[in-house]
């Protein structure tokens, strides 16, 4: 069961790994303008991850800072949901995932901005404006692609179908010590589901897309059991810090 350390780490890892995937798009987006937009979004997420990782290190009180937690943990020690760790080299997939993820982050941070934990409330209060913009960006692209040409509609629906089965883990309470919820520190994951669902469904409707009717994938990232793709991501992300321990600019 995740206490305050595990909970903070889980939210930090979601943001960190998502940021790393987002950075793949730098120099690859369909337009220079979109390139900058996706980089901005990734950097916002990285900023959230840094604050949360630093706080997790403080809570753990074992002398680990944000860099130690980001660069010196192995795959099984990461607590992010599998939704964010998989490759996203298709623009439709990227927008579908960002739609789901940012809609969830909006509700999460809105709830956490009222947390009994002052640091979590502070981080969430700052982040909630950032993720509202991410949601706006994803929503507009999903609507434009879904309600665009035949090809864009098809590819946007395919992206949504690919990401939908991974969303359920965001709302799974199993990993969390419910004491954290009772004391008003954490937001109960399942309590966010209806609001996220309503928001995402409204966008799907406007985009003339269909709510995917697909089975949920087994996904246990919160327990440290990841898809095979996380290892490759970490190899790239951690390579420099591990090859040159303690290196600074």
């Amino acid at each position, binding site marked *: 069961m995740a206490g305050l350390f595990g909970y903070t780490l889980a939210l930090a890892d979601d943001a960190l790994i998502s940021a790393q995937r987002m950075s793949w798009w730098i120099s690859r987006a369909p*337009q220079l*303008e979109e390139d900058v937009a996706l980089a*901005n979004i990734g950097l916002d997420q990285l900023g959230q991850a840094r604050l949360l990782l630093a706080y997790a290190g403080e809570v753990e009180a074992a002398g680990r800072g944000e860099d130690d937690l980001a660069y010196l943990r192995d795959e099984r020690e990461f607590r992010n949901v599998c939704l964010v760790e998989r490759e996203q080299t298709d623009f439709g997939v990227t927008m579908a995932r960002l739609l789901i993820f940012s809609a969830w982050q909006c509700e999460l941070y809105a709830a956490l901005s009222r947390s009994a934990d002052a640091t979590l409330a502070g981080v969430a209060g700052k982040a909630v404006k950032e993720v509202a913009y991410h949601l706006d960006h994803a929503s507009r692209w999903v609507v434009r692609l879904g309600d665009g040409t035949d090809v864009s509609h098809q590819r946007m629906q395919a992206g949504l179908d690919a990401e939908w089965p991974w969303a359920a883990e965001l709302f799974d309470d199993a990993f969390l010590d419910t004491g954290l919820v009772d004391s008003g520190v954490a937001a109960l994951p399942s309590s966010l589901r209806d609001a996220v669902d309503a928001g995402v469904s409204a966008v799907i409707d406007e985009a003339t897309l269909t709510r995917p009717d697909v089975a949920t994938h087994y996904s246990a990232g919160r327990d440290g059991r990841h898809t095979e793709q996380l290892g490759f991501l970490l190899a790239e992300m951690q390579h420099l810090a591990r090859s040159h321990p303690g290196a600074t600019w």
Partner: protein
Amino acid sequence: MSRDWPLWEVFVRSRRGLSHVHVGSLHAPDAEMALRNARDLYTRRQEGVSLWVVPASAIAASSPDEKDSFFDPAADKVYRHPTFYDVPEGVDHL
């Protein structure tokens, strides 16, 4: 597809009370996305509190060839400048 995106001119108002000033241009599929791209490209460092985007095709521009007839005649008409008055004390921005 990407080459079809029209060009938009971006104007930023840096503070309340000041005018929107042209800062550059960008590509976007429509006005809503142009505003959002402008936000990402031109207000990253708190440059503004308000944004306008205008289709570049909607702007009528004076031609460099007409520069002489457009602008030079104003050069020798000093009486158009309100420099022959004493500025009252306390009026800084007349």
